[in-house]
């Protein structure tokens, strides 16, 4: 039999390589090329980096002490002395925004990391194993979603007992269900792919299959959700602070500043608009960078760009 078939075979046919493959680019170069392809991404990245710089070196950058009150100078209009004016206690708004970036960026990033991390794992387990485990996890998530996010965060936060740390943790936990649901949906479709089955057939364990094949291929929409949730987390921190949890006066945070300022919206709009714009800039930059990151990590674009 074997000799019989061998006779039939024309060696020439196989020794010729299957066909030319397009030339290769180094993967780091390619990543950077796709990532930085659009000018707006470069700009957003620059904005984010400078914000981080400002947050770290706030005492050096800020023109005034953000906590120094001078009631004689309260509610001043923007001037050369105070670029964004002063608030009702006479504190310099620009300095407070600069110091506030420390709290706001930290709350945004940390709570989203907590939410994404826990949510992704739960969604992955629920989607991959299905059945009973899936029901337990997802019903729990549904129950969490039934409670408004702020109230849930407030509840967890007060159990943990105030402060910046507990704000981050409580917001992180309150955001978990959205990640779990999204991840589960992705996993459900990805786990049916032939390449996951191929993994099983070549002896890959469930655990490895989950993290090597399923999770990486489910990531794209999660990256988008992360960038969207940053803004939500920053604003939610304001609400929590307003309700007396988290940053207590006189501490500076963007959300809290918007809140304090809105009382003076008619007479001194810059008080709440200025920190509001800061929030918008951060969220927008994260969104743009996140989108570019997702594209750059997408192997489907390899060889084409």
């Amino acid at each position: 039999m074997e000799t019989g078939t061998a006779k039939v075979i024309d060696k020439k046919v196989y020794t010729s390589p299957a066909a030319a493959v397009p030339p290769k680019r180094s993967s780091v170069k390619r990543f950077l090329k796709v990532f930085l392809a659009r000018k707006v991404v470069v700009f957003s990245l620059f904005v984010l980096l400078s914000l981080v710089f400002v947050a770290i070196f706030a005492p050096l950058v800020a023109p005034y002490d953000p906590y120094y009150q001078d009631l004689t100078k309260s509610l001043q209009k923007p001037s050369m002395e105070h670029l964004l004016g002063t608030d009702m206690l006479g504190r310099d708004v620009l300095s407070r925004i600069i110091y506030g970036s420390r709290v706001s960026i930290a709350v945004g990033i940390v709570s989203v990391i907590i939410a994404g991390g826990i949510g992704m794992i739960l969604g992955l387990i629920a989607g991959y194993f299905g059945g009973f485990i899936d029901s337990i996890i997802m019903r729990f998530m549904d129950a969490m979603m039934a409670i408004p996010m702020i109230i849930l965060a407030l509840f967890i936060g007060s159990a943990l007992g105030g402060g910046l740390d507990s704000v981050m943790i409580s917001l992180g936990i309150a955001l978990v269900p959205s990640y779990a649901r999204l991840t589960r949906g992705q996993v459900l479709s990805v786990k049916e792919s032939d390449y996951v089955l191929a993994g099983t057939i070549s002896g890959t364990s469930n655990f490895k299959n989950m993290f090597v094949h399923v999770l990486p291929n489910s990531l794209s929409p999660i990256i988008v959700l992360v960038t969207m949730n940053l803004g939500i987390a920053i604003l939610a921190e304001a609400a929590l602070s307003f309700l007396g949890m988290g940053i207590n006066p006189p501490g500076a945070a963007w959300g809290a500043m918007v809140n304090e300022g809105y009382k003076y919206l008619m007479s001194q709009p810059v008080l709440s608009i200025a920190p509001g714009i800061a929030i918008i800039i951060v969220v927008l930059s994260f969104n743009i960078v996140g989108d570019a990151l997702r594209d750059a990590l997408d192997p489907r674009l390899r060889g084409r760009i």
Partner: protein
Amino acid sequence: MEHLLEVKNLKTQFGIDGTTVKAVDGVSYYVDEGEVVAFVGESGSGKSVTQYSGLQLIPSPPGKIAGGEIIYEGENLLDFGPRSEKMREIRGGKIGVIFQEPMTSLNPVMTVGNQISEAIMQHLNLKKREAKNRAIELLKTVGIPDAEHRVDYYPHQFSGGMRQRIMIAMTLSCDPKLLIADEATTALDVTTQAQILELMKDVVKRTHTSLVMVTHNLGIVARYADRVYVMYAGEIVESGPTKEIFNNPKHPYTLGLLKAVPRLDSSKDSKLVPIDGMMPDLSNKQDQCAFQPRCNHYTDHCLSSPSPQLKPVDEGQKHLYACYENINKNLFEEKLKKKSSIQEQEEESLYKTELTEEKDTILEVKNLKIYFPVKKGLMKRKIGDVKAVDDVSFKIKKGETLGLVGESGCGKTTVARSILRLYETIDGEISFKGQDIANMSKKDLRFLRKNMSMIFQDPYSSLDPRKTVESIVGEPLKNHKLVKTQKEYQKRISELLSLVGLDPTVKDRVPHEFSGGQRQRIGIARALASDPSIIVCDEAISALDVSIQAQIINLMKELQAKLGLTFLFIAHDLAAVRHISDRIAVMYLGKIVEIGDWRTLYENPQHPYTKALLNAVPIPDPLVEEERDRIIIEGEVPSLLSRPKGCPFSNRCPLASAECLDVEPALKSIETNHEVACIKV
């Protein structure tokens, strides 16, 4: 004579990422009244785009028709805008299109009657009542039983073949002069495909309509078409009457296609000759013969000359080709038929020894039953079973290939998956190298996973898009700890890649950088990595183009000879199965109805289903096709839930009698190596 449709020098381009893809590049053709014209070519050759350009259905942007004329009944259609009243009237009213995917081309929330009436009211100005009557009439024309009732059914209540009939009814609704069938039967099963094609042929004849068939199946062309246009890289490379094209192909591409496609009637040992390489990138097309890089016949003249123009084979003939060389088929026929009587005798004796040779059984399946429970209601009460596989037994010997064929839903994939133990519980016995797979514990599965692997159908979804070739191919190596050092690992991966004809330097690429055929090779390399003794190929070549298909079939045969592999080859393409298999089992509704070695089964089929199945496959040779009798079996594969009593084939079988409804026939041996499950045999 005035042509019904004449296209002159049509050019369609797509602007993608700043480059211009010349999808259709100067195509001229015509269609006469009442004739059947076929467009053949591999995917990406521009055959569909050509048709859609004619109807101005090209998505724009990025597409645009850059030049040419489309003259239909004396008017140039390109003078009218794509959204003009006139074009709307022509689409559907004068020219009807039947699409490939019957599952998505009907609107699921409208009854089929309403969908057909809609077109009729739009084009023929009929009242709703009259339109509905006409719809019923049309449904009868296309062979939908009980049309008066079924006209109010929704699309999901029909099977795929029935939906395609409804599509045809819809396109016929306004008495078009021209029908365009874009791969209209590709998604259907073989027997259904034969029914639909016969129906189209019949309708075209009766209504004196012209039909343009776009297909990649050369067999269908040989059986039905009057004239053929062969397309490659957006150009027509050869055209002429069907018989001329098949008997005396002048373009090397046509010849290549004819030699690459496996035929039901050719000698098994006539090897498939693949066309090396792949279709050129149409975005930077040079003014040069586009086929030259893949051509075996090119000369220096081809390299230095502009793209060849179509010219007649002989003065005044209808057979045109675009090539500088004048190749002779005779030369190839000689090569193919060179087999002398001595060789034939040799073959015969080889075949006989193969038959008698005792080889170890490597896999034995006994009374395999896979039932899926059907649950209903709030309490998920079990109301019945879907008997996907019902009492299947077979053996595979070491080093042989068992082909498992059947139409969709016959349970062939379920058999494959149970052999790979992808189901938790399995009723029946599966013994692999003496070990019981069906009841193997999770721990022992490791042994199975190492010794058994799988090649998948779709090369686009079977490779993890985020992993490099190295980690894809290396996954089994790492899982089974088959290599000790990094150096050994790298060496083994290079070895595997060169074994499947890939350059080992492609290791760090990701799947998206490869073409379909190359991806399939990566999949094969992965399947070979753990050095398995049996490989399950689930439709491993169905998704590939003809020329690539031949490459993969040859590669698999070579690997089998080299490594002594055993294949379980699952497919619905009977010609390809015949080419690669030693023994073949035919499945119908979860049962094996006939099993035998390839020669007996194809030359002397006994079961009526096998006969019908073989008959339904068209052979890419018009002369052979003319002489064949057609057995068109009625009906379609029934749902597994409404399995007929007695013999599963009884409701479609031409031989069936009352007896067949009572007895469920078992496989019985009628000669050496040939078993049939039919009481009439």
